[in-house]
C-alpha cells in the first residue's frame, strides 16, 4: 500500500470497471446532481418520495448482500471471521446509500403528468 495515491486508486478503479468506467462516472454524476435537485425541490429528504426511496434502498442493500458472494463465485459458507462479515455489511451500506440516492433522485424529481 506504499504507493497508494488517488492516482493509483483512479487507475485501479478504471481498470477494474473497464468499459463500464466512464458510463458509471457519468451516471454517478447525473444521479448525484439529480439527487441534489430533488433535495432542493422537496426541501430536504422528506415525504412519500423519501419513504419509497428508503424502501428501495433497503431492498437494494439486501439484494447486494445476497448477490455479493455469488458474484465472486463464492457462497455464504466462505465467509469466515469478522472481516468477511464487516465487508459484507459495508457492501450493504454502500448499496443502501446508492439505491436510496438513485431512487430519490428519480422519485423526488418526478412530476406526474
Amino acid at each position, binding site marked *: 500500500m506504499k*504507493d497508494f495515491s488517488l*492516482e493509483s486508486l*483512479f*487507475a485501479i478503479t478504471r*481498470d*477494474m470497471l473497464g468499459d463500464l468506467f466512464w458510463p458509471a462516472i457519468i451516471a454517478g454524476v447525473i444521479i448525484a446532481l439529480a439527487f441534489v435537485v430533488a433535495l432542493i425541490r422537496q426541501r430536504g429528504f422528506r415525504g412519500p418520495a423519501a*419513504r419509497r426511496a428508503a424502501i428501495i434502498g433497503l431492498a437494494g442493500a439486501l439484494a447486494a448482500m445476497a448477490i455479493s458472494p455469488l458474484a*465472486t463465485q463464492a457462497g455464504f459458507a466462505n465467509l469466515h471471521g469478522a472481516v468477511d462479515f464487516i*465487508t459484507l455489511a459495508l457492501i450493504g451500506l454502500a448499496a443502501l446509500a446508492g439505491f436510496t440516492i438513485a431512487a430519490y433522485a428519480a422519485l423526488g424529481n418526478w412530476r406526474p403528468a
Partner: protein
Amino acid sequence: MNPIFPMTLRFPMTLRGLDRRTFLRGSSALAIAAAAASHNAAAAPVDTRARIVIAGGGAAGLTVASRLARRLNGAEIVMIEPRMEHNYQPGFTLVGAGVKPASYVKLATADFVPSGVRWVRESVAEFDPAANKVVTDKNTALSYDFLVVATGLVLDYDAIEGMSRDLIGKSGIASVYAGPEQAEASWKALAQFCETGGTGLFGRPETEMKCAGAPLKQTFLADDHLRRKGIRGKAELIYNAHNPALFSVPKVDARVRDLFARQEIKTNFSHVLKRVDPARRIATYATPKGLVEMKWDFINIIPPMRAPSAIRKSPLPWQSGAWAADGWIEVDRATLRHVRFANVFGVGDINGVPKGKTAASVKWQAPVAVDHLVATITGKPATETYNGYTSCPLITRIGQAMLVEFDYNDNLTPSFPFIDPLQEHWLAWVIKEKALKANYTAMLQGLA
C-alpha cells in the same frame, strides 16, 4: 410528525437561492482539493540525455519503463521485447482451475508501452556489460549508459525426462505455467480427473520458481473441485514437496501442513520429479532413498525454471553460491544494483535474491531500481530499498484464500492489518479474484 420517518432532513427555506450558490462554490473547492490531493508529491522529472536499455518487456520491464518515462525528461529509453502478447500470469492458476477463461489473462504489450519509450521487438541474444552493450537476435547492437535486466525466466520442461509442452492436457497432465492455452488445457485435464477420481500428484521443482505458492493453490483447488463433485472419497491427492518444507516461511508452512491434514492431502518430502511416462502414467521421483515411481491419473507438473540462455552465457549471474547454477543475476538484495557492474540493475524473476519471484515483488522492486538509477544520474543519494516483499494470495478453495505476504526475514508483512494472513477469508479471495488484475495493469503503467 411522520410516524415511520420521524427524522427528516430539512433544509432552510433559502436553499433555492443562497445554498445553490454555496453548493456550486463548494463543489469547485472540492474538485480543486481533490486534484491537489491526487497530485503526487513526486519531484519534477530529471533532465538527462542518458541512454537506458531495458532487457525484457514483461511485467518488470513495462513497469520500469513506465516509471522511468515519468521520472526522466530527455532520456533515450529502449525496451527490448519480442512478444506482442502480454500475459497476466497471476491469473494462470484461476484459468487452470476453471474459474476464469483463457481470455482473462491475455493482454497486449502495445497497450502498456509508455510514450517516449522505443520498443524494439527483438530479444537480447548477448549481454556485454563490460562494453555497456547488448546485441539482439537480429544483430541489433544497443549501447547504454544504464541497463535494466528484466528478462524473466525460462521454463525448462526438457529437464524432466519424457515431458514436453505438447503433452499438457493429455494423459492427465496439467501445467498452467506454459501459457493461457496450456492453463485452459490443464483445467480440462483437472475437470476430467474430477469426474473419475483416482490418484492426483502435485509438487514443485527444486529450482527457484515464480509464484512458489501456486503448486499449493492448485492442490487445494483440485481438492475443492473433487468435493464439489462429491467424489473426494474416490480420489487420493499426494503433494510431493521438493525439500523438507511445504512453504519457505515457517509460519505459513505450519499452517499449510494443518490445512493439508484437514483436507486429507498426503505429503511426501524431498521428492523431485525426474521423469514422466505419459503412456503408462508413471512419474519417477528422486528421493533420499533412491528413485520412487508413482502412478497418476492426474499430475500437475511445474517445470524447473532458469535464467534465459543469453543471461547464463553472460557475466551477469552469480559466479558461486546457491543462485549460480541456474543463472540468476548477482544484484544487491536491497538496492537491486548489480554487484559487479554498477550501471546494471535487475528487476523481477531474473534476480538472484532470497525472495521475490512474484508480480507483487515487481511492484516493490521496480521503484527501488528506478530510484537508484535516477539517483546515479542526479548524484543525489537514493532512499528506496527492497526488503524482499513477496505476496502470495494462497487460495485454499474457490471462495477463500489466505493473503500471505512476507519479507526476506520470513516476517509476515500484511498490507491490510485487519486481514489475518494465516486465516482463510472470503475478502482475500475477493481481492485475488476481483482487484489484483486491475492493480497489476495499473502497476504496468507505473501507477501502482
